[in-house]
């Protein structure tokens, strides 16, 4: 009798646990918008960014004009960030349901290179253009000499100053050369205007990562041998610097915990902070979400850790890949190369998205000097900043551990040190131990 009961209970437990899980799966299936553009061979594309979606939309129109014999009907789905990566992983693991082309964000890309990559190597389209492209932007999406993703941008990190607030405080952004200068200027801004100099992300990595990657030499969260390097004394110092900024009131934790949150856009738009350092691709967010700051923002190279040290780092990125489930792999690759690798594509990436394109041979082309919504917002000299720091853009190291490090930063490390004010060294050591 007892045994049978035990078995029944087990069966019961199993049922409930599984029905619980299956419910959850259904419910995380939140809304997605699908748009279909053009007529012809159907190619399905997933992206997690509405602006990327619009870009592909315009590129497929151009492609169809140029290639009457190879017209494409592009079906673009814009999915939420987590949804896209999870669905794509499951689809690739199970061998069913993946799109032809998908955007994959850099901190998730390593997941897709584990084991035998279920993405198609893009070498046949990338190799002919290799000499024109910033090599480090290909390396981050490569495994065993094969390239699996093409990026939009270099993602050079820069600092955006609110000139109105700086003027009120009597600070000249060109005098800020190092992070020590920045701290001093921040104090002045706080005393004169009562507004914090900047905000720091506590649930995302774009405040800490550029500062870490710009450190001289190959220092990054992962060292040059692929080992987790979180507790490196230099990284500890970076986090201590951020903690000091918060302790002195020069910085505050970003409203909504990050620079991609509605709360933050509203806060910044109302002149809530005097500056923010983010990669070049953040320009689009200013234009779209912070319209009131138009004409007030100046873009400058980031301060350096010491005078003469690098002033930027290539940050973030979206590797677009062709999956092995594509029914028209050749066409998908050709279109992808046209959209993201060709000269026209790279110029359009700048014009429409305001990204610093990965082909360095277009950086000084006249098209990049033309007026567009970004020059209207930020002024004409955007690319001068980029050309100024061209040789100072430090790279990052990406391995299979990157998704774990990125999760640790987004959940525990930044929150515990910047909000709960725990000792950075202790927190980083603990995180490193867990990830190793």
């Amino acid at each position, binding site marked *: *009798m*007892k045994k049978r*009961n*035990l078995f029944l*209970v*087990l*069966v*019961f*437990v*199993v*049922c*409930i*646990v*599984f029905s*619980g*899980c299956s*419910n*959850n799966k259904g*419910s*995380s299936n*939140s809304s997605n918008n699908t748009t279909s553009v053009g007529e012809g061979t159907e190619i399905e594309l997933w992206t997690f960014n509405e602006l990327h979606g619009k870009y592909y939309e315009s590129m497929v129109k151009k492609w169809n004009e140029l290639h009457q014999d190879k017209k494409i009907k592009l079906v673009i789905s814009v999915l939420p*960030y*987590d949804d896209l*990566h*999870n669905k794509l*992983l*499951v689809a*690739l*693991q199970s061998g069913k349901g993946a799109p032809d082309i998908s955007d994959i964000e850099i901190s*998730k890309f390593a*997941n*897709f290179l*584990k*084991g*035998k*990559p*279920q993405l198609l190597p893009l070498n046949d389209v990338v190799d002919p253009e290799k000499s024109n492209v910033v090599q480090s932007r290909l390396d981050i999406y490569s495994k065993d000499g094969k390239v699996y993703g093409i990026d939009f941008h270099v993602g050079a990190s820069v600092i955006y100053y609110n000139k109105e607030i700086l003027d009120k405080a009597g600070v000249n952004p060109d005098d800020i050369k190092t992070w020590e200068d920045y701290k001093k200027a921040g104090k002045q801004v706080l005393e004169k205007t009562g507004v914090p100099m900047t905000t720091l992300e*506590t*649930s995302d990595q774009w405040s800490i990562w550029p500062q870490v990657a710009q450190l001289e030499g190959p220092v990054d969260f992962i060292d040059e041998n692929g080992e987790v390097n979180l507790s490196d004394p230099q990284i500890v110092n970076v986090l201590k610097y951020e903690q000091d900024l918060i302790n002195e009131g020069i910085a505050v934790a970003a*409203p*909504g*915990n990050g620079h991609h949150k509605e*709360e933050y856009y509203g806060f910044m738009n109302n002149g809530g902070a005097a500056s923010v350092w983010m990669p070049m691709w953040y320009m689009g967010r200013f234009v779209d979400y912070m319209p009131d700051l138009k004409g007030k923002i100046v873009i400058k190279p980031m301060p350096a850790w010491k005078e003469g040290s690098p002033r930027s780092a290539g940050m973030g990125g979206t590797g677009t890949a062709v999956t092995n489930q594509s029914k028209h792999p050749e066409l998908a690759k050709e279109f992808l190369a046209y959209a993201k690798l060709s000269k026209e594509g790279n110029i359009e990436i700048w014009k429409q998205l305001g990204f610093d394109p990965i082909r360095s041979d277009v950086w000084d082309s006249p098209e990049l000097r033309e007026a567009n919504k970004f020059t209207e917002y930020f002024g004409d000299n955007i690319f001068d900043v980029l050309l100024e720091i061209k040789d100072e853009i430090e790279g990052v190291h990406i391995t299979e551990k990157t*998704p*774990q490090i990125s*999760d640790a930063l*987004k*959940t*525990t490390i930044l*929150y*515990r040190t910047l*909000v*709960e004010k725990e000792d950075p060294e202790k927190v980083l050591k*603990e995180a490193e131990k*867990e990830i190793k």
Partner: protein
Amino acid sequence: MAGSEISLKNKPEYPSKQGRGFKNIFYSQKIAPYLFVLPFIFSFAIFFAYPVYSTIVMSFQEVLPGQVTFIGFENYKNLWNPTFLKAIWNSTVYTALTLLVLIPFPLLLAVFLNSKLMIAKNLFRSITFIPALTSVVVAGIIFRLIFGSQEGALLNSIVGVFGMEPKAWLNHAGTSMFALVILATWRWMGVNLLYYLAGLQNIPKELYESAEIDGASTIQKFFYITVPLLKPIIIYVFTISIYGGYSMFAESYMLYGSNRSPNDIGLTIVGYLYRNGIEQNNLGLGSAIGITLLLITFVITIIQLKFFGMFKREDS
């Protein structure tokens, strides 16, 4: 059980000749029961038993697309880390708090709703049940807005009336657990209430009448008639609430808009499973977490059922 045996023994007069073989199966005492449970056996085997089996196998493997290797207990060893312990702790606290709220309060409400003196019974019954019909996604987003950190968020403007500073509710362990428990209460109160109501309606009125004649007070009637007779229902609600608590994931996911909460204050066991298995493409470790969750709930259930004397009654 007893009822079904009786009806099987009362064989119908239908002639059981050969040639009507197929129909005969339905009337055969030996085969019919198995035939009737067959659909369940099939769906159980395909959707439950097989997945459990393959999860157990996968928990000893490193599962990557295109290459699967056995790695022994490595996945289970990797589970011994502060984040997983935190996830277990969060799930346990959440379960305990929801039990504290969702066992006694629906019982009280059910007694009220069952009372003859109550007006607009059906209206209240529907109102308490409607939240269970809403999608977790919608509920989660609404609760995220209610508990938002802006001054204009609903809860902050309410506490503002009492002179309290606006708070970042979802950024602190205590207040975010509070939000999760409130969400669970709002959603599941009506369901548990329904179970209790069904149980209450099965209690014979005569018992109350005779108690009244003996001069029992309302409170005495509640503790000496209602509660003991509702015991099987209470045990059932208790059991499903334990699983509900431990398998909670969607609520926290929707409340934070992702599986990442500040300092992992909203991380549950299933959230940790999702993070490792799906988000970090490590299905082997994910399976090990799933099996651990299964064992935890199994052990707790055994202890709980033993404590309520469910096994003892069957034996005697």
